[in-house]
């Protein structure tokens, strides 16, 4: 840790006119803009829910409200881990920051995996596609946009995680950095595309052995990538990342919490209201 670490004030930036760090202000303004993106999508959904054409899908017959409630809970808990990651880096504790970042990413992947299972289930079993009903069009577009936000959040967290390993000294490292990021991304992708949906299927009674053999290739690649992630995570030399980067972690945290809050609104407006 740098010697002046104790002097960093995480709540006031003396170099800006307002005391708010530039990055934080940028993210706040972006989130205001993002509100309007979701506002337009949610409005579209609700307009068509209030004026359904004949033959529209019936939401309560399509939804699996227990599963969605569970993944909502997981997403909210990921916000707790995100807050702990910010707290850890503000105290200069890089080890704990890494753990919390990975935890946030993994919870995000559980949520995404739930959505992958949900979409696949709705299409294959409930026969609701993007194009065969207006409910399908608005539902998949709205929740898909939110899922994309979560996925981008996981990617950003992954980049932040890999960045914490950037050595303080040394000339090269770009290839190593790319390999590290590729491994992290592979683990996360395998988790939410195959591992989590298979886990849900297993809970609903699908035989585990069959699932394993059916997805042997992605699981194998995921296991190798996980080993690579562990190998890269060996404690190395001094790193450049530290308490001064707290604002970077906090900025991603803002985004992550915002995406969670949006999900609370979507979960209420799209799912819960249907059960009133």
């Amino acid at each position: 840790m740098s010697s002046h670490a104790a002097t960093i004030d995480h709540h006031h930036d003396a170099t800006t006119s307002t005391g708010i760090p530039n990055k934080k202000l940028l993210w706040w303004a972006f989130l205001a803009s993002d509100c309007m993106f979701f506002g337009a999508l949610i409005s579209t959904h609700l307009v068509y829910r209030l004026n359904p054409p004949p033959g529209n899908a019936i939401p309560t017959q399509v939804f699996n409200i227990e599963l969605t409630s569970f993944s909502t809970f997981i997403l909210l808990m990921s916000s707790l881990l995100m807050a702990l990651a910010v707290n850890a880096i503000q105290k200069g504790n890089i080890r704990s920051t890494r753990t919390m970042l990975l935890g946030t990413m993994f919870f995000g992947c559980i949520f995404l995996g739930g959505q992958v299972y949900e979409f696949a289930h709705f299409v294959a079993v409930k026969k609701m596609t993007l194009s065969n009903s207006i409910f399908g069009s608005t539902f998949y577009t709205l929740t898909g946009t939110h899922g994309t936000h979560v996925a981008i959040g996981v990617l950003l967290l992954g980049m932040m995680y890999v960045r914490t390993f950037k050595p303080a000294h040394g000339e090269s490292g770009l290839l190593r950095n790319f390999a590290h990021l590729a491994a992290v991304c592979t683990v996360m992708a395998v988790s939410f595309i195959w591992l989590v949906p298979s886990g849900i299927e297993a809970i609903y009674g699908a035989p585990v052995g069959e699932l394993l053999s059916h997805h042997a290739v992605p699981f194998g690649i995921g296991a190798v990538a996980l080993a690579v992630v562990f190998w890269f995570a060996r404690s190395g030399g001094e790193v450049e990342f530290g308490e001064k980067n707290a604002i970077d972690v906090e900025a991603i945290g803002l985004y992550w919490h915002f995406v969670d809050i949006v999900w609370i609104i979507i979960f209420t407006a799209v799912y819960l209201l249907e059960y009133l």
Partner: protein
Amino acid sequence: MAEAIAKHAFTGAGHPPAKATFELMARPTAKTGLISWLTTVDHKKIGMLYGGFAILFFLIGGLEALMIRTQLMVPNNRFIGAQLYNELFTMHGTTMIFLAVMPLNAAFFNLLIPIQVGARDVAFPRLNAFSLWVWVVGAFLLNVGWLSHIVPSWQFGGAPDVGWFGYAPLTSKVFTPDLSTDLWVLGLQILGLSSIVASLNFIVTIINMRAPGLTMMRLPVFCWMALVTSFLLILALPAIAIALVEVMFDRNFGTNFFEVSGGGQPILWQHLFWVFGHPEVYILILPPMGYVSEILPTFARKPLFGYPIIVFSGVAIGFIGFGVWSHHMFTTGMGVVATAAFSIATMAIAVPTGVKIFNWIGTLWGGQIMTRVPMMFALGFIWMFMLGGFSGIMHSAAPADAQQQDSYFVIAHFHYVLIGGATFALLAAIHYWFPKFFGRMVPEFWGKVSFWLIFVGFNCTFFPMHFLGLNGMPRRTWTYDSNMGWNEGNFFATMGAYLLGLGIFTYFAVLVWSFFKGQKCGNDPWDGRTLEWSIPSPPPEHNFAAIPNVHARDAWWYEKTHQDEIAAEKAAHIKAEESHGGIHMPDQSWYPLFAAAGLGLAAFNFAQLHHPVMMMGNQVLSSHLPLALTGGVIMVAALYLWSLEGPGGYHIHLDANGNATESRGDHH
């Protein structure tokens, strides 16, 4: 105080220079030549690129308008075909709004905001470069369709032809199966991305990078209007972004958002479009209100009258601007309550606009008015914009609007607001700030000739359209019969348009002449009030030798009248900054350009997703997906390398004569 400034990013020594740990390629350092422009992060160079592209498209949009007017000069004309006519009026509107007036405003945001707030660059210089190149990508996508008129084997189906507001269900695949609509959808989407990113940057710059003493209520009115405009952009563009996504999904992935057969309602497009589209007209006019608020006091030799009222009116216009969108839809049958509410809100928004007009008149009142060219355009702005405002008030009454809807009366109205308003103010601004950024004056005589040609030509073109519209001539009509009573008005308007075209040509020809031969000028040729006039013309890369302390609303005016106090302050600032390693400047970068190029490749191929890739008449790929993905990967990789590269930076050191030397890699 001086210590705090010295630590400020881009005002003093901020971060230690980034180590070369993660470098794919060496950072560019060229100050001149092609590479310096492609990799620049300097807000002045970016502003000039915006301005250059915008003027190019302004002239292209003007040529499109002249072709439209030529077609309408006489009844039953066959100068151009109906299909080409549709493409022309679509692209004339799209070009003038998204590729001329908005980027011209963006040019002035870039050129002026950092200097007027006393900073050395915007808050995120590389992001600023990214906005510019993304804008270029959007402009390319919108216009690439013209090429299929030249090379028929490039089957884009011509330029977009669905009208600038692309009403559903005309944009449905059933009615416009051509690629032109897909390119229009993605082109607008990408221009929106560019505007949002740029606006976020300007919001942070204006709020966070103000020089010491520059409180919000001392900000130049132009910066205030830029701030309001930026907020309008980030809050309004998402609505059209989602609407465009929905159209794109309808066209390419079989959704039913606007497909009546699948339960969709085309009226939703109109709502989403105008939730963006009405704030958009304030996005176009608020920055011009800012230019005029800077120019009038300079040439009336008086401070701006009622500064706080002008600022608050601008904010109020931005605020109410989000609650009036349905006045574009009075004839769609929204119901009595909605129609009445939007009618009242529309009348209400005239109040802050009128307040501004009175403040400008108050500024002129009792002043010593100097009728230099920028002032002539600014005065023309007040008068012409008021005329456009009066016809706007007429539209706000729903019963009257029902008669005027889709007629030439509407064309007359919004051209008075957008030419008489926005364009007059922009022409004033170009003339006013040209000496600052090129160091040369524009000759008064030729400037005045161009003003009178434009003023007379403009009124001859658009005033008759009020009568044409009230006599029933519809918009977007390719031709008309000779017995409708529209012959004289149309002929007169076309002659006016040629005069206007001559005026615009004169205006820009004089600018080109001035660029090479104009009389050289000093820092402050107009005896101005704001900070940009305190620095050399053209400004050096680092803008300010010493970051100013702002003591008054008219900061430079105060400096001119308190020279001893200011000289002592500046010496202290320079000393503090040098002790922190010199003037800190951001490094150039390739990655904004690369990321935008990747985005362009992705979007261009995504627009034609389901079409096979042809080369020399042979099918190479069955769809454009692999190419679109390649573009996406290039973009993400460039963005990641951008983040690894870090902001970087170097230091400028000034000697006693103001000569600059640079140093890199020193630690502070």
